C-alpha cells in the first residue's frame, strides 16, 4: 500500500504543479515582458552607406536584435523606391552575414530622394523601419528641409506648412 501511494502522491504533485502553471499562464502576457515591461520585439538599426555614387552598387546594412541578442534567422527584405513613386518599388532579399547583420546592394542611376524600407520577420515578430536618403545636391537640400520640417512637426504645433522665406 505504502509503495503504491507514492506514485499517486507524485502524480498529484505533478497535476497540482501543472494546474499552477496553467493558472499562471492566464497572465502570460505580463509574464513574458522584459525588465522595461515590454513584450518581445525586434530592434532594427538601418545603416545607410556613407556616400552614394550614381551607377555604383551601394551596400545597405541592417542590424537585427531581440533583447540585445543578434537574430540570425530573420527573413529580411529591402524595399527601395523614389520618394512619391512607390510604384517603382524594388524588392531585394537581405543576405545574412551572421551576428544579426543583413545586407543588400543596390545601384541607383538618377538623382533624387529615395526611401529604403526593411521588412524583418522573425517568428511572429515583425518590424519595418524606413529611412530616406538623397543623391545629388538638390535632393540633399530638399531632404534637409523635409527632415527639419518633420522635426518641427514632432515637437511643436505645426506652423502651417513651412513658409520660412521672408
Amino acid at each position, binding site marked *: 500500500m505504502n509503495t503504491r501511494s507514492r506514485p499517486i502522491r507524485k502524480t498529484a504533485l505533478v497535476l497540482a504543479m501543472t494546474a499552477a502553471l496553467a493558472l499562471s499562464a*492566464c*497572465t502570460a*502576457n*505580463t509574464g513574458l*515582458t522584459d525588465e*522595461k*515591461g*515590454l*513584450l518581445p*520585439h*525586434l*530592434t*532594427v*538599426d*538601418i545603416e*545607410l*552607406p556613407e*556616400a*552614394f*555614387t550614381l551607377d555604383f552598387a551601394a551596400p545597405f546594412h541592417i542590424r537585427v536584435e531581440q533583447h540585445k541578442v543578434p537574430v540570425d534567422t530573420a527573413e529580411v527584405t529591402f524595399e527601395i523606391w523614389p520618394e512619391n513613386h512607390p510604384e517603382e518599388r524594388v524588392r531585394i532579399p537581405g543576405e545574412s552575414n551572421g551576428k544579426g547583420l543583413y545586407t543588400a546592394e543596390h545601384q541607383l542611376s538618377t538623382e533624387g530622394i529615395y*526611401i529604403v524600407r526593411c521588412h524583418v520577420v522573425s517568428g511572429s*515578430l*515583425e*518590424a*519595418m*523601419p*524606413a*529611412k*530616406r*536618403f*538623397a*543623391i*545629388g*545636391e538638390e535632393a*540633399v*537640400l530638399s*531632404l*534637409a528641409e*523635409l*527632415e*527639419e520640417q*518633420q*522635426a518641427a512637426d*514632432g*515637437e511643436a*504645433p*505645426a506652423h*502651417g*506648412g513651412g513658409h520660412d522665406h521672408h
Partner: protein
Amino acid sequence: MNTMTNSSPEAKTPDSRTSSNSKLFAALYQSVWRWHFYAGVIFAPFLVILAFSGSMYLFKPQIEGYLYKDMLTVREVGTAALPADEIIAKTMRAYPGTTISSITFPDDPQSTLALAANRNGTSTIMYADPYTGHITGILNSDETFSAFFKKMHSELVIGGTWANRLVELAACWAIILVLTGLYLWWPRNKSAIWGTILPRFNKPGSRQFWRDLHAVPAFWLSICILILIATGLPWSGVLGGQIDRLANATNTNYPPYALSFMAKPESVTVTKDIADNVPWAAENLPVPKSAAGGYMTLSVQDISAIADKQQVTLPYTISMPRGDTGVYTISTSHTQPGDNATLHVDPYSGAVLTDVRYTDYGLMAKAITMGIALHEGRLFGLANQLLGLITCIGVILIAISSYFMWRKRKPQGKLGAPGKAKDKRVTIGVLLIMLVLGALMPLVGLSLIIVLLLDWLIISRLRPLKHWFSA
C-alpha cells in the same frame, strides 16, 4: 418618534426583563438617528447635485447623438474611406494652427472620425467624414454637453481639487447615510410590511407619509446606491488612491501599460541620427553629394493595419507619438468592457512594444473596469441606463422627502436635530463605529475630527448654539 417609525423601540410595552434592553435600543436608535440627521442635512444638497448631473451623463450617447447629430454622422456612406493620413494632412492644411493628437475610428460606417485637435491652444474635437475628409463639426472639448455634466459630477462645476474632494466626501458620507438609514428602517415588528417595504399613503402630507416616501424607496434603492458609490470611488482622489494601492499590494491591479493615459514606453529604435544628420545646413559648408536621413515615422494607416493584424476590434483610438522617442498608442473605446486593449507601437519600426488586454487585468482591475461601465450605464444597455436613472431620481426623492419630514418635526428656534442619546456608553459606542468608518474612508475621518473639535471647542461652550444644535 412613535409616529416617525412604524415600531420605534420606545413603543414597546415595558417589560421587566427587557426594559433595560429596550432603553439601550432606544438610546442606540437616538444616537444613530442623530448621525443620520446631521449627515443628511449637510450632504443631501451635494447628493442631489450628483444624482442630477449623473442622470444627465448616463444618457450621453442618446443626448449627444441628438445634439451633435450633424457632426457625428456622415451625409452619405461612401464606397471607401480615405487614408487617415490624408484626412489629417487635409485638416491641418485647411485649419492652420491645428495639431492632431489622436484619431478615433468608429465601428459604424455612418459615423464620422473624431480627431482630438489642439487649435491655437484650445483642445477641441474635430469630426471628419471618412469618405470625403470634410470636417463636419468642431467642438471645444470642455464645452460639450457631457463635459459640462461630467464637471458638475466630479467638481461641482466650480472645478478644482477642493470641489473634487467635497464630492468624494459627500459620496463617502452617503455610504454612512445608507447604513444608518437601514438601521433606522430595520423592521422591529415581524409583521410590519407597511412602512418598510410598502409605503403608507393613507394620511397624505403627514409626517408618516413623508417618512414612508423617504425610507421605503431608500430601502429598495439602498443596494443600487451603494453599488453606484462603490463603482464611482475608484475615480476619487483620496480613497481611489488607496484602492489603487490595495490592488497593487494584492497583485490584482492593472498591469503596466494597460491604460492609454498611464505612462508610455519609449521607442526602441535608435534615433540618435535625427538631430545631427545635417550639420552642413547650419554652417557654411559645401552641400554634400549625398546624404542619409533619419528614421521615418510610420503612417496612421500603417498603425491601423497593425491594429487589425493584432485583432483589435473597432472602435479604437490611435494616439500620435509625442517627440522623437514617443510611441503610437492604440486603445479601444468600446461601450462595453471585455474586449479592452491598449497597445504601444514603435513609431519607426512598427514593433508592438506592449499589448495589454482585458484578460491580462488583475481581479480588482477587472472589477473596477466593469464597475466603471456599470456606473456610466454602459454595461447592459438601456436597462443599465434606466437602473441608473431610477437610482438618481430615487436619491433626489429621498432628499426631498427628508426635507419635508424635517420641516414637519422642526420646532421654532432650533435646528430640530434629534437630541443626544441619554446613555453615554451608546454615544461613545456609535462614535467608535463612526471612527472605524472614518479610518476606512480618510475624508470621513478628517471630517469627523473637524466636527468633534467644533463640538468640543465652540458648540458645547456657547449656550445658544448648544440649544440650537440640541447638543
